[in-house]
Structures are given as C-alpha cells and as structure tokens.
C-alpha cells in the first residue's frame, strides 16, 4: 500500500442538484477568438484595488508587455494581450456588479499580434520554489476560477499549519460553465505538468484533482494521462454533481474531510486549492514563457446562436465574442458574467473580459424565469434554506436580522461565512431574495468597518498634532526663557565692563 493515497469520499451538507445545461457548450472543442479592434482593461483590479498604468497614451505595446501593476503585498501585473497603440484612458463600464463606469486602459490593436521576445524557458525541475513563484508573479497569474487572488501569494502560505495537499478544482459545479471541462479534455498533459510545477513550488508530493461525476470525459482524459505517465502522487477523485461542490471550501471538505475554519483559509488545514484554468496558465508561464494574456471563456446560453468555449484575449469586449458565436438568438433577458447562480448582470456588452471571467451567459427569458417577477411573500420559517445551506448557516435568521438592519447580530450568525451560492434563494417557497439581503448587509458591514478605521486614523493624527503643538509651544517658551536669562547675564557683564569700554572710546 506504500505510496498509494486513499481519499475517502465525504459528503456535503446541503447543496442542490441543479439542471446543468452543460451540453450547450461541452461538446465543441475550444476555438481561438480573433483579435478585437480594441482591448479594454479596467484600472481597478478585483474589488477596488487601484492599478497604476505603466504606459502612456500613444505608446506602442507588444503582446505580453506589462502595461499596469497594482501595489502592495498582493499586487499583480497586467500584460497587453496583443500589439497595438495605447489610447487615451476612458471611463467605461467595467466587469463589476455595480455596473459603474471606471477608468480603463485601452489598446487599439494593430492586428499584427507582435509578441515580446521571451527568454528560453528553463525546465521547472531546475527552478527553485522562489524562482517559480517569481515567474508566476511576472506572468500576472491570478486565480482564474473567479476570485482573482494572486497565485504567487497563494503559493507562499503564511500559516502555522504545514501544507501537505494540493487540491485542484476541476469541479465545475455552476450550471452552464464548461471551460475547465474542455481544458481537461483537451490539455491533460499540460495540466499535469502545471500541477507538477505547483507541487515543486510548494515542495510537497500529494495532489488530488476533484472532478464532478457528471463530467465523464474529463475524468477519463485526466485519469488516462495519469496512468500513461505512471504518476502515483496525483490522483483524480470524483465528487458528487452537487452544487456548490466546486466552492473552494466545499471541495476541500469533499476531498479531504478537512473543514476550513470560519476566519481562516484553506492553508490553515494544510491545503492549497488551485483552479484548472490557473494550472493551465502556470503551465504556459513556466514552459512557454507566456504571460497570462488569454484564458478559456464559456460563451453560452440559449440567447447565443453557437454556444462554445473560446481562447479569449483578456480585455476583449464581449460584443466581439458574441459576434463570433453567431450573434444573439431571439429575445435576450440578461447578460450575465460568471455563472447563473453566482454571476452578476452586466448593463451592456461593451465590457471587457477580465482574468476572473470564466463564463458569459446570454440568458433568454425562459432561463431566468425563476428569478423574475415572483411575488415576495413573508418568511414562513419552513427551514428549507437551512437544509440546503452548504455552510450550515441559518439563512432565515440571517435574513431576519439583515432586513431589520441589525448587521452586528447577523454577523454573529455567520454572515461573512455565507458564500452567496444562492441555494437558499432557489428553494425559498416565499421567493425571498435572501442572498441579495446578505450581500447588502455584508457591504454595509464592510463599509462601516472601513469608516471606523479611517475615523480611528483621523483621531490618531489629530491627537498626534495636538501633542506636537503642545511640545513645540513648550520648547518655544523654554527657548525664550533661556534667551532672556542669557540677555540678563550679558547685561550684567556689559555693566561690569562698561567703564573700560567708556575709557577706550
């Protein structure tokens, strides 16, 4: 039995068996999208992190050139996805649930797709973990599953717990999305190499790939590749096709039985989790020297003529991709970025694809009928929401306090542990938009915390200034006193020597 890992199959509390709709896009191989006329990059990364442009209007940039960076320990780089000229920064609608406009860096492409020269890649086995992390950082890789957390930071865990397992998230639990499924079917060799790079960066030798049971082709493809290469430290594990089995914490629990603590991270239970798309990006970075300028995006929904998966340059406006999918089909109800359950509605199709965009769902009225025009009735405390909650929260209690504005109380009921999966929304017989209440409550609490912090800072600075002023005043008085003393002394002396002075004159 030595060297053979046995992962017990755990089950998830709660969760839902949702209609997958994955066949819309699953069967076609990934095609490459064409170069768009312009590439749009918001100068805010993730939630509110401001990026600094490193290029000026009129500059010519090459594919793979760094064009913007964000500062700090979790800073990342942004690379141009094609060659072209930098335009004037403009306010554009960005990929954010607010639908607000924000300052964007715009490249007018020249169609040449000229790339930066890349150094001859060194084989990963000759790289130290720190060098691998540096390369991953320089390639601008962030988690491609949706959260967009910098991968290099994630690979340098700062926790008292020693990391022993790498979990690869291939459980694409959201309905409609098939980009990771296609990647596993088409690039098993590359994914395995990417995993080996990550294992080397973490200096561990244990990896488990979690794939949902309704993705037989992907399971088959990965398993065959592992068997072909005879690798015994990477294992494919099938997880039930239950939404949200692909949530980071849920998947880790399903595969290892370890529960990530409420205020902690997966590293606190010795696990690092990476998404399939991220692993592919790591492969491209280490083996081909390519920065993260392209990713696979699922373009799907009954509102598209040809739903499919595409290799898309980051920054490509959605309308370009829609055109390449044969255009809109019939009446469109909503344009959703991300999945049906956890994604957000976009105000228009000019928004650029970001690193964290895994899916564009063009939904027809039929597909979103459930969430529309339903009369909201009072909560009858049936408890259905609590049965389906994968985090074992009590959504009815959270709702009670959130709608009453008692955000402290809802936090004591685990508001911030809510992963906003929407299971409670789906089962609620009163059609209460629960997650929307939780999101509103969360953002209120976050802003309140930030306001308190700035108020604390202002108070500190005010007190410091008062102290400084008092000290300056004291010093000034001291100086005056000393001067006066010196003057008196001088007068005395001059009085003593005055007769001599008078003689001289």
């Amino acid at each position, binding site marked *: 039995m030595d060297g053979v890992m046995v992962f017990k199959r755990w089950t998830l509390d709660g969760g839902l068996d949702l209609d997958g709709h994955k066949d819309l896009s699953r069967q076609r191989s990934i095609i490459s999208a064409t170069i768009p006329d312009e590439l749009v990059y918001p100068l805010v990364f993730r939630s509110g992190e401001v990026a600094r442009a490193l290029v000026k209007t009129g500059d010519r940039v090459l594919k793979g050139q760094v064009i913007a960076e964000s500062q700090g320990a979790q800073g990342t780089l942004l690379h141009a996805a094609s060659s072209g000229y930098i335009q004037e920064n403009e306010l554009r609608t960005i990929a954010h649930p607010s639908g607000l406009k924000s300052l964007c860096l715009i490249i007018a492409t020249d169609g040449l797709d000229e790339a930066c020269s890349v150094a001859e890649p060194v084989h990963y086995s000759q790289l130290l973990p720190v060098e691998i992390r540096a390369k991953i950082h320089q390639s601008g890789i962030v988690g491609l599953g949706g959260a967009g957390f910098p991968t290099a930071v994630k690979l340098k865990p700062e926790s008292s717990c020693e990391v022993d397992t790498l979990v690869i998230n291939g459980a694409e639990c959201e309905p409609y999305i098939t980009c990771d499924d296609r990647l596993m079917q088409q690039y098993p060799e590359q994914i395995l190499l990417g995993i080996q790079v990550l294992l080397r960066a973490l200096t561990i030798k244990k990896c488990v790939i979690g794939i949902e049971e309704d993705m037989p082709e992907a399971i088959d493809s990965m398993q065959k590749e592992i068997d072909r290469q005879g690798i015994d430290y990477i294992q494919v594990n099938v997880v039930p096709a239950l939404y949200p089995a692909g949530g980071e914490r849920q998947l880790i629990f399903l595969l290892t039985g370890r529960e990530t603590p409420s205020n902690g991270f997966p590293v606190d239970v010795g696990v690092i989790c990476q998404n399939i798309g991220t692993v592919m990006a790591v492969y491209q970075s280490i083996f081909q020297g390519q920065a993260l300028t392209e990713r696979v995006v699922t373009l799907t929904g009954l509102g598209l003529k040809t739903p499919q998966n595409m290799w898309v340059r980051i920054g490509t406006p959605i309308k370009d991709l829609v055109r390449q999918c044969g255009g809109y089909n019939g009446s469109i109800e909503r344009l959703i970025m991300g999945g049906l359950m956890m994604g957000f509605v976009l105000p228009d199709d000019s928004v650029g694809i970001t690193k964290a965009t895994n899916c564009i769902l063009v939904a027809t009225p039929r597909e979103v009928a459930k969430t529309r025009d339903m009369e909201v009735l009072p909560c009858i405390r049936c408890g259905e929401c609590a049965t389906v909650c994968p985090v074992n929260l009590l959504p009815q209690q959270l709702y009670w306090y959130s709608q009453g504005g008692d955000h402290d109380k809802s936090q004591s009921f685990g508001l911030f542990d809510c992963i906003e999966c929407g299971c409670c929304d789906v089962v609620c017989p009163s059609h209460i938009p629960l997650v*929307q209440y939780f999101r509103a409550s969360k953002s209120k609490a976050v802003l309140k915390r930030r306001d308190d912090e700035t108020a604390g800072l202002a108070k500190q600075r005010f007190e410091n200034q008062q102290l400084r002023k008092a000290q300056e005043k004291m010093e000034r008085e001291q100086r005056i006193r000393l001067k006066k003393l010196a003057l008196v002394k001088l007068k005395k002396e001059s009085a003593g020597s005055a007769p001599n002075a008078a003689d001289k004159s």
Partner: protein
Amino acid sequence: MFWVCLVFAFFGVILGYAAIRFKIEGDPLVAEIEAVLPQTQCGQCSFPGCKPYAEAIATGKADINQCPPGGEAGVKALADLLGLEVKPLDENFGVATEQKVAVIVETDCIGCTMCIQACPVDAILGAAKYMHTVIAFECTGCDLCVDPCPVDCIVMTPIGLSVSNWQWPEPVNNRH
C-alpha cells in the same frame, strides 16, 4: 464586636487598594461618546475637535445634535448611547452634506503653508514656496483649509460613487 470591626477593616483595605490599583483615567463616557463621533475634527460643533465636543456632551454643556458630518445617523447613535430623545440636526451648526475631499489646484498654489497649518489631521504635504498637495486618504473633508488659502486654490470635491465604496442594494420589493 472586635471581629466585626476586623472584617470591616479588612474590606476597607481591599476597597482602598482597588480604588488606587484599578483607577480609571478620565471619564469613560467621554471615550464612548467620542467613538460615535466621525472624527472629522472640523469644529462645526463650535468645539475645537471631536474630543472636546465629546467632553462637552458628557458634562451637559452641549447638545447631541451639533455634528453635521455625523448626520441624523450620528444623532441617533448618540441618543441611543445616552438614552436621550432623537432630535433633528441643529441647523445653526451646519447641514449634513455628502462626503468630500479637499483637492489643491496645484497650478495655482503659491506654497504659503497656510492650509498646512489649518489642517487638523496633518493631511496636507508641502513646504514654503513649494507646491502643496492633499493626501486624499487622510483628508477628513473638514473644510478648515479652504478659508485660510489666500489664492482660493482648494476645492472641496465630492468623493462620489465608485467601485471601492459601492454597496449592494437592498432588495426593492420588500413587503414586510
């Protein structure tokens, strides 16, 4: 009788020690009131800063509705804390406006340092005869630098809605 006296003396010593050992510096009520105030340090309440205003409230010298930056929500928080009736903001001390930040029109700045001296939180950077600038993150939007500027080059700009301060809206069709 002797024993009773001894017990009393014993407790007397304990209480006397505790009074010295666990003495609380300052009025704890002032700290609680101050925590509710927005720390703008703008002086609109007629006191030179949030702490003096908190002290004035604690001693009954000022009312709870004199802080425009705190707004109606601030008055309510103070009323809850002190067990008083909620009342509207006293307009003699100004009206609640949206949050602003001071911006120096840098081409017009003559480098006189007047605003630096006026800023209660040291959020303005610069030196004599050199251009000044506001550290936006540290500016409380108190307005105190606007009047001292001899060339009127400080503009109070509304912060406005952006991705970093946007909030998820509450559901609209709330019927309960």
